[in-house]
């Protein structure tokens, strides 16, 4: 089976785009990815489009704007992991010999949803009872704090660190750093999480071009290999994500490390699913960057900073780049692609060779969550 490489990436800025329709945002990202890769639109043999709320045949409508028609297009919904699932789909199609060049697109336009919460999912029981995401992660925080003594200051430091990274990322809307005091005193959304402990709802799009071993050298001398791509869903646990660890993340990461022949100590940077500060701390433990319960101490010691043991969310992450649901998983792959090619500008992780992307998506009553993905990329 063919190895699979990333050869191009594109992204819009993640922020409210009130005057641009979502198909146009996705076109811009897709065209940037195509242009940067050197492929001709006619070379693209297969497409996956990840989104959660953008309607039927979204990917076809986006590609039509570029004049890419006739190819197989799969539209892919896995809540916040929709984009990551799209990358996984293209990866597997190329690996299986279905195509030599494919595009994964992720996009969402949600910032117009007033109030800042993503829409409640009416067909999910607990969601319709009021189990909003800030409440889920508030309870994750309580559990971790009660079990391990993690502090609010440690959680707040994650928001400060990710904003520091985000202001150096031109795709983030923010240009101002924030202080620990600001994070701790901003209005509480769901205890103990304050507004600055939560990611914003954004509009945006991202796209990546993937290529097979057979054709990759035609397009670039600096390909980035996707060494493993793992997608999993939650098992029945009753409590959902309101726990001090994510079983499905631990399970997906173990498989991804095995497939890649790479361990957590080899990872130079991680684009991690951090819709709330506590999620970064918990998932760093789940991904093996530190032992369970040590996350707070590692945050205190700056070991997840750029220049630390593993740079976590050098892009700013969901917290400080933004989180247009379907776009996020693709944007993570784009960020790692740029980082591993040394093209990440002011936020560049020095000597980055191995990157890991992690997403979680979808509250589903009775199971932990709808989806998780782990992709490991190697320069």
């Amino acid at each position, binding site marked *: 089976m063919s190895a699979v490489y990333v050869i191009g990436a594109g992204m819009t800025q993640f922020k409210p785009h009130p005057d641009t329709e979502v198909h146009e945002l996705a076109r811009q990202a897709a065209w940037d990815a195509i242009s940067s890769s050197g492929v001709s639109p006619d070379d693209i043999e297969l497409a996956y489009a990840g989104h959660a709320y953008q309607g039927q045949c979204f990917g076809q409508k986006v590609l039509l704007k570029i004049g890419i028609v006739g190819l197989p297009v799969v539209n892919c919904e896995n809540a916040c992991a929709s984009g990551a699932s799209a990358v996984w789909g293209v990866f597997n199609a190329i690996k299986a010999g279905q195509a030599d060049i494919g595009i994964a697109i992720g996009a969402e336009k949600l910032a117009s949803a007033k109030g800042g919460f993503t829409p409640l999912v009416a067909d999910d*029981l*607990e969601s319709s009872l*009021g189990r*909003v995401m800030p*409440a889920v992660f*508030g309870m994750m925080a309580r559990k971790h704090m009660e079990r391990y003594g993690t502090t609010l200051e440690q959680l707040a430091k994650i928001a400060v660190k990710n904003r520091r990274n985000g202001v150096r990322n031109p795709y983030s809307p923010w240009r101002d750093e924030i202080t620990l005091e600001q994070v701790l005193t901003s209005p509480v959304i769901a*205890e103990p999480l304050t507004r600055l402990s939560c990611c914003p709802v954004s509009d945006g799009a991202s796209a990546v071009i993937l290529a097979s071993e057979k054709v990759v050298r035609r397009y670039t001398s600096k390909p980035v290999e996707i060494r493993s791509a793992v997608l999993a869903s939650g098992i029945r646990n*009753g409590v959902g994500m309101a726990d001090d660890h994510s079983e499905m993340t631990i399970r997906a990461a173990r498989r991804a490390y095995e497939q890649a022949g790479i361990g957590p100590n080899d990872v130079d940077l991680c684009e991690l699913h951090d819709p709330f500060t506590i999620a970064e701390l918990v998932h760093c433990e789940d991904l093996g960057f530190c032992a369970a319960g040590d996350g707070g101490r590692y945050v205190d010691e700056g070991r997840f900073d750029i220049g630390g043991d593993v740079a976590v969310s050098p892009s700013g992450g969901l917290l400080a780049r933004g989180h247009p649901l379907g776009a996020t998983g693709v944007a993570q792959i784009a960020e790692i692609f740029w980082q591993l090619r040394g093209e990440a500008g002011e936020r560049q992780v020095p000597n980055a060779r191995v990157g890991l992307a992690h997403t979680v998506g979808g509250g589903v009553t009775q199971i932990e969550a709808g989806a998780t993905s782990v992709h490991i990329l190697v320069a």
Partner: protein
Amino acid sequence: MNATRPLRSDLFVEGTPPRLIGSRCRETGEVFYPVQAMNPVTHKAGTIERVELDGAGTLLNYTRVLRGIPGFETPFAIGVIKLDAGPILTTQLADWADVDLRTGMRVELVIGQIKRDADGTVVTGPKFRPLEGSPA
């Protein structure tokens, strides 16, 4: 007075005390909430029967939500409840405002307002009320 409607017709029966509507497997005895069409553990169909569940349970986790979403009155409290009957569910707490909430607290089922429809209709569903003074 506003009209009311249950969130779903298969979640609970009102009464003193109210009960939850769940499922039990005749083969394994496992109890599920909400209602199941088949046993999701053994993957067998035809072994599931309707059962009314006692609403006594223990609070495993909780949080207060201060910023709301359309239709929900804030602040509201969310809890994860382990029913004595077996299943675990996440829903709103009732009568929590003057209670020092803590994990391990005993709670009991009440039927109350979850949210309002756009036309003002009160949507009811299962909520859990802390039983003060109970051992942690």
